[in-house]
């Protein structure tokens, strides 16, 4: 039933694009030779550690570090006073509306448990630990805000003394919802809650920093964004060109290494001690204090006419941002744009807000706001279908967006919206229904569709660059400042250049992730990297080819249009015997002073910011659509849910490497299934209860079935070769699909995640006492 790796996925008009090329980085990774951030060693390297706050909300009366400074082996103990510029300035909306200053080390006020207060560098782990234990902080615990709902109540404690707790309020207004509700035959209104989730990449945050002879501060760290060198320079009060960030292959990011992690701290310690410093966070530190996925409370009021057509949707989203903005405003903006789902709704009103609390910060995580809303809008579609006596498929089919339709933001969908075929293929691939495994077991099925943007919001004027050059032996070098999180970001660039320049992949070396030595390409986030740097490499390769083709044509005595670059050679199309090694072409270019290297970039489509009162305007470059179908078994005695089957279908435009695409879909689907069924960062008045991997549970191989990835290629998308982004899209649909399957199995619909046995058991008990069944 499973495809063998050599099996063709679909005929491709290309030589290299569309083939399941083995990734060069995977060959390194299976041998254990890849040097991740924590694997880096330099002579004389110190151990860096962070002293973190114990309380979630407190005033700091006094910090005493003198004793720690005198301990053997301790090279530095730093507090806020030692940081040249102790703030990171953030523009939370990207629109220049307000500026927000987040402390690097907090000095007077603790706003979340685990907030950094001091830094230590010492010769050994033990000495660093001893120094941490010798630091004394006197706290005055304060009242805090520990849930989003109460953050805006009058009299709620202020997280920041100088402003109220509302961080952002985005508005979307399309049509007239009052009018829409007036013409509706059915209205369903529900409140859905998603939980706080940890990225749980297997590689904890880590980095090594050192200062070069010319005063350049180098930071080699596990990061998604090398462009943070500018913020680090501001913290150190150095010119931007005196800080360099290097990103080695990253052990998973998922948005959690999009904000800075160790970088400013390890840079400060190296800058202060003038020695190399390594900082590796423990798993427990990571679970305690790293930003998480936002918990959302989503109130949805959805209306349809008797024939199943949506007429209006009124949505209020409230998210817990923790105490600092980070990327919360942008996460909420994505929720705003995707809030009404992949459906045509004439009248839409959405309010999306994020509030400050004293809980652990929240920021980017794969799916970025557009995944949480999937749980709400798809559950609403199921409820409407039940009320109207339509099938779940039928009600969706009557409302699916089509190419050319406008989103509630007023922007038109410019590429294929293949939802009907995506959905039917996902549902069909579930195959025969499983039989319950015992008398108390019930089997159920559900599916859910989604819309997820790829690329940055258009007002950021996103840009990526690449340099490509031939070596004299005909081998090829690519330089592009992408970061590789494991999704094949570097390998895909090799594949694109190989296709255009005719160099075999094993003759191409790609240098990535160095803010000083590789042309900047932007971070790996927002499902933008293939779209942006892929297009940059494609453009650069095409332009380099155009520069070199005339030389090849002259040597081959052929028309330029008849020359092709393939298989390490330039040859005449139709006359395979007339060919020359690319090295020969390179030599001839040198003789004629024709360049054999080229730098070029790709600029994403850009537009003015949306109207802030109505949310009208162009928002994201494009969207990816998908549908997941699942089958579950529910044990009615325990409330336990077993995921039996999971099919995930997405239109990826074109699959550059089908295996990599399948891998992205499978991994994203399981991340979504983990959020649906088990994951939960538990806080008690701001105190984190899940700071062990033994208490924060992610799916093991026993918790999830094989994920069948169904790759649909519409041939339309804005990435290279018409690819669409696929990194984030698979995370959302599992949330409502699993909830829907549980409803199908036992007649109970849960509106709060995760769908734990306790929660389901209680709902089953309530249903058993209420009766009759069916009134969800």
């Amino acid at each position, binding site marked *: 039933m499973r495809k063998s*790796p050599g099996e063709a996925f679909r005929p491709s008009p290309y030589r290299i694009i569309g083939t399941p090329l083995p990734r060069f980085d995977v060959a390194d990774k299976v041998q254990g030779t890849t040097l991740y951030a924590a694997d880096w060693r330099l002579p004389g390297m110190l151990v860096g550690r962070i002293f973190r706050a114990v309380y979630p909300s407190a005033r700091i009366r006094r910090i005493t570090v003198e004793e720690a400074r005198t301990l*053997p*082996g301790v090279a530095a103990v730093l507090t806020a006073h030692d940081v040249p510029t102790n703030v990171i300035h953030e523009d939370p909306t990207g629109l220049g509306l307000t500026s927000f200053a987040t402390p690097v080390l907090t000095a007077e006020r603790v706003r979340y448990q685990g907030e950094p207060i001091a830094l230590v560098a010492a010769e050994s782990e*033990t000495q660093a630990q001893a120094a941490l234990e010798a630091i004394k902080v006197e706290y005055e615990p304060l009242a805090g805000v520990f849930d989003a709902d109460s953050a805006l109540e009058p009299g709620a404690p202020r997280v920041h003394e100088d402003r109220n707790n509302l961080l952002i309020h985005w508005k979307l207004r399309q049509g007239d919802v009052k009018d829409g509700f007036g013409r509706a035959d059915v209205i369903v209104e529900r409140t859905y809650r998603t939980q706080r989730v940890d990225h749980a*990449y297997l590689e904890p945050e880590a980095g090594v920093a050192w200062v070069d002879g010319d005063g350049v501060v180098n930071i080699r760290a596990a990061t998604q964004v090398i462009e943070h060198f500018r913020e680090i320079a501001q913290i150190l009060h150095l010119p931007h060109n005196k800080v360099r960030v290097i990103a080695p292959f990253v052990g998973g990011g998922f948005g959690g290494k999009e904000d800075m992690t160790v970088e400013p701290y390890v840079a400060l310690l190296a800058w202060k001690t003038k020695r190399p410093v390594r900082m590796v966070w423990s798993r427990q530190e990571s679970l305690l204090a790293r930003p998480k996925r936002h918990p959302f409370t989503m109130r949805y009021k959805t209306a349809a006419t008797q024939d199943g057509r949506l007429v209006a949707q009124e949505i209020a989203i409230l998210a817990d941002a923790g105490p600092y903005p980070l990327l919360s405003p942008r996460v909420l903006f994505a929720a705003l744009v995707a809030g009404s789902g992949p459906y045509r709704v004439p009248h839409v009103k959405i309010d999306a807000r994020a509030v400050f609390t004293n809980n652990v910060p929240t920021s980017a995580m794969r799916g970025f706001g557009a995944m949480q809303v999937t749980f709400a809008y798809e559950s609403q579609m199921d409820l409407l279908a039940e009320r109207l006596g339509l099938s779940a498929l039928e009600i969706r089919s009557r409302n699916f967006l089509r190419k050319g339709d406008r989103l509630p933001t007023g922007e038109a969908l410019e590429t294929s919206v293949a939802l009907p075929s995506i959905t039917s293929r996902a549902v069909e691939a579930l195959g025969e229904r499983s039989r319950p495994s015992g008398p108390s077991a019930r089997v159920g099925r559900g599916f859910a569709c989604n819309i997820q943007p790829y690329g940055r919001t258009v007002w950021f004027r996103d840009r990526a660059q690449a340099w490509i050059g031939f070596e004299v032996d005909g081998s090829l070098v690519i330089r592009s400042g992408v970061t590789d999180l494991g999704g094949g970001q570097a390998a895909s660039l090799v594949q694109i250049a190989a296709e255009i320049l005719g160099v075999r992949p094993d003759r191409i070396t790609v240098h990535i992730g160095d803010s000083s030595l590789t042309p900047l390409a932007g971070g790996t986030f927002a499902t933008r990297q293939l779209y942006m740097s892929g297009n940059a490499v494609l453009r650069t390769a095409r332009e380099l080819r155009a520069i070199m083709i005339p030389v090849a044509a002259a040597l081959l005595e052929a028309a330029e249009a008849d020359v092709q670059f393939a298989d390490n050679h330039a040859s005449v199309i139709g006359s395979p015997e007339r060919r020359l090694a690319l090295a020969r072409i390179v030599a001839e270019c040198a003789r004629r002073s024709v360049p054999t290297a080229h730098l070029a970039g790709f600029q994403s489509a850009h537009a003015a910011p949306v109207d802030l009162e109505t949310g009208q305007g162009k928002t994201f470059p494009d969207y990816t659509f998908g549908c997941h179908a699942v089958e579950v078994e529910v044990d009615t005695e325990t409330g336990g849910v077993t995921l039996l089957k999971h099919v995930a279908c997405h239109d990826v435009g074109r699959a550059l490497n089908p295996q990599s695409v399948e891998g992205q879909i499978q991994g994203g689907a399981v991340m979504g299934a983990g959020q649906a069924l088990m994951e939960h960062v538990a806080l008690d008045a701001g105190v984190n209860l899940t700071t062990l991997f033994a208490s924060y549970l992610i799916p093991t*191989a026993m918790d999830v079935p094989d994920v069948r990835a169904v790759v649909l290629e519409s041939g339309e998308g804005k990435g290279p070769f018409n690819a669409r982004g696929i990194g984030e899209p698979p995370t959302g649909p599992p949330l409502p699909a699993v909830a829907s399957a549980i409803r199908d199995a036992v007649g109970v619909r849960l509106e709060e995640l995760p769908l734990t046995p306790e929660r389901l058991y209680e709902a089953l008990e309530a249903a058993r006492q209420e009766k009759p069944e069916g009134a969800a």
Partner: protein
Amino acid sequence: METAAAAAPEPVRLSFVLNGHPVEAWVAPYETLLAVLRDTLGATEAKCGCGEGVCGTCTVLLDGAPINACLILGVQVRGRAVTTVKGLGTEGTLHPLQRAFVAHEAAQCGFCTPGMLLVAHAFLRDHPHPTRDEIRAAIAGNLCRCTGYTRIIDAIEASAGMREDPSGSTV
């Protein structure tokens, strides 16, 4: 004030066999095998994912059996044989399991991969003809956040299949 550094006990001499080669090191008696491997011997192919024995990322083989290197002290392996992923293949030649992981793209970020390969290797040695569910159970102590496990199981299954192939040819 008494500190951990002041109270640190004398280092002890430790010798064992790492990937077939005898090694010697001076280690603190409280150091984990993982710390000895990574910080003293430079065997950074053993990764630290949690340090609490949950994620399986630090898995190595001790006399052929998979263990969490973060849960055992370095001094406990005195005179014994430790295998990391670098002991799987031979110089320049990938082990069939490693080849299967490449062919099936069973690694994405690759951080769990060394531990995953060692567990799979020990499992296949004892269970040459496993079902997919048996493979699932075998790797349940090794977390992966990227792949969703399907391709890892594919690769292990394919590798087991290859062993049955009398010609010995691989992917």
